[in-house]
């Protein structure tokens, strides 16, 4: 179980940040980091311990209380360059709260977040129901508050696979198009860490697979760290390097194959969830583009990932 922790033991050395070095104690014991479904309370002494040196963002011992209810308790998390970390968990597990803490929208009740100055976050929010009372073309939205040229905007939209939406109204886009426009906006900030909250909500199944392919491609091309939030297992898990199963606290974490066999995971998602990977890993002889139209596989496909 301990081996399932995302950070290899070799990387879990003392903090590289001088400010933390003073307090950085070696982890007393890793037993507390893998709590198999039970609540293990707050461990303030573990804060600052075992920060992963090359992490784009690290959270230690995060707890959050909303109106007397503890939404998150003692959550650790690291995302490094080039890896896709997926946060799964049932509704109300605190996934979105954790993302809001990482983004600095809210402050945690306990714990801390360490983010090197070089980390640039691109954020794709969960729900983006643009109020149709606000007139906004996709082009104007991407330019809003960003120091970018028209060519930058076109390039980002093209990369996200939504170039044809450039002059459309934001409120008229489909779910998949909206997500791609939001990804383009995130890309314009030249991020090295992409945080996506339920990117596939409002997107149909084939569109969902396309979207995760896109995220995988962006990771490969820009060496991005990616933190994905999902309550859906099938498509997401197979493409993740690491899965963190959250239910108020970290139930289990590790490689998708390991997590899917984990007892805590089965308790939360039901006995059938273990076969989720199998469901996804069938052979595809075609792919679907943004409009849902089938294309043969020999057109540019993500290198070696997904189907």
């Amino acid at each position, binding site marked *: 179980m301990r081996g399932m922790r995302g950070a290899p033991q070799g990387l879990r050395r003392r903090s590289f940040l001088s400010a933390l070095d003073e307090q950085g104690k070696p982890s007393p014991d890793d037993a507390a980091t893998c709590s198999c479904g039970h609540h293990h309370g707050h461990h303030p002494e573990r804060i600052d311990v075992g920060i992963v040196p090359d992490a784009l963002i690290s959270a230690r011992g995060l707890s959050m209380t909303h109106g007397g209810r503890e939404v998150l308790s003692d959550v650790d998390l690291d995302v490094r360059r080039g890896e896709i970390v997926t946060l799964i968990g049932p509704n109300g597990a605190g996934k979105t709260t954790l993302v809001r803490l990482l983004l600095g929208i809210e402050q945690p009740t306990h714990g801390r977040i360490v983010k090197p100055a070089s980390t640039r976050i691109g954020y794709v929010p969960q729900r983006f129901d643009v*109020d149709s009372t606000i*007139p906004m073309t996709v082009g104007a*939205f991407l330019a809003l508050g960003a120091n970018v040229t028209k060519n930058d905007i076109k390039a980002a939209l093209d990369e996200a696979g939504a170039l044809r939406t450039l002059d459309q109204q934001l409120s008229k886009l489909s779910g998949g198009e909206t997500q791609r426009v939001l990804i383009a906006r995130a890309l314009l900030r030249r991020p090295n860490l992409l945080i996506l909250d339920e990117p596939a909500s409002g997107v149909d199944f084939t569109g969902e697979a396309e979207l995760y392919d896109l995220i995988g491609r962006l990771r490969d091309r820009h060496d991005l760290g990616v933190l994905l939030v999902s309550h859906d297992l099938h498509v997401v898990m197979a493409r993740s390097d690491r899965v963190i199963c959250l239910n108020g606290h970290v139930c289990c974490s590790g490689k998708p194959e390991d997590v899917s066999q984990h007892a805590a995971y089965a308790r939360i998602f039901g006995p059938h969830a273990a076969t989720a990977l199998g469901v996804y890993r069938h052979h595809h002889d075609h792919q679907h583009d943004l409009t849902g139209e089938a294309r043969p596989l020999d057109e540019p496909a993500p290198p070696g990932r997904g189907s």
Partner: protein
Amino acid sequence: MFAWPDPFVWRAFFAAVGLAVVAAPLGCIVVWRRMSYVGETLSQAGLLGVALGLAANVNLTLAVILAAMAAAGMLTLLGRQKMVPLDSALGLMHHATLALGIAAISLVKGPGIDLMSYLFGDVFAVTETDLVWIYVGGAVVMAATVYLWKPLVRLSLHEDLATAEGINPRLPRAAFDFLLAVVIAVAMKIVGVLLVMAFLVVPAVAARPLSATPERMAVIAAGAAIFGVILGLWLSLSSDVPGGPSIVIALCTIAAISLLAGSRRER
């Protein structure tokens, strides 16, 4: 048969046009943030401000701004409770401020205080000093609106995204409440507390079907408002209807036509 208008008509025209241009972009943000009734409540708190200003013998414009800001603070607090929905809480504040304002004005009632002129304004009573205030104050409000425009649009669009991208939502929001209070205080003389929000909201509504971007909506709203002012003043002078209500009738007619044309085009 065209007679050159009297100076009081020119003063009314320039006051209403100045106000229309300053109010247009703020009105757009009011519409986007679904704040029509918040604005309504702030403007009626202005009536209470008038009463307190009269009683304490301080500048009425200042008193109205302070009262509207206090109401904005109250609304923020009311928004935090979860017992009743926000629109009900607004209904409470909205009626409470109006009733309190009318009661307070009748208590401090002295010679030369006309409740009706505060409720409905009197655009033809605008003095040259008022005009100076409208244009100096208007220029300051306009400059602040331009400065805050992008953060405000981004917050209206998606607050979490804007915050995650580094905008602190508190400052633009508080500044916006203040600008709204200033516009309400100035507009009160012209259209009165009961019709102030029409001056902000209706031109924005008229502009929406004709706009593809937020900036264009603000510019078109200003144009629609100027057109409504001209039409309203003409209506008032030719039919002896009070100025403020005439302008609002003209604005609403323009908005209705624009919405009808817009919904026809959608089909």
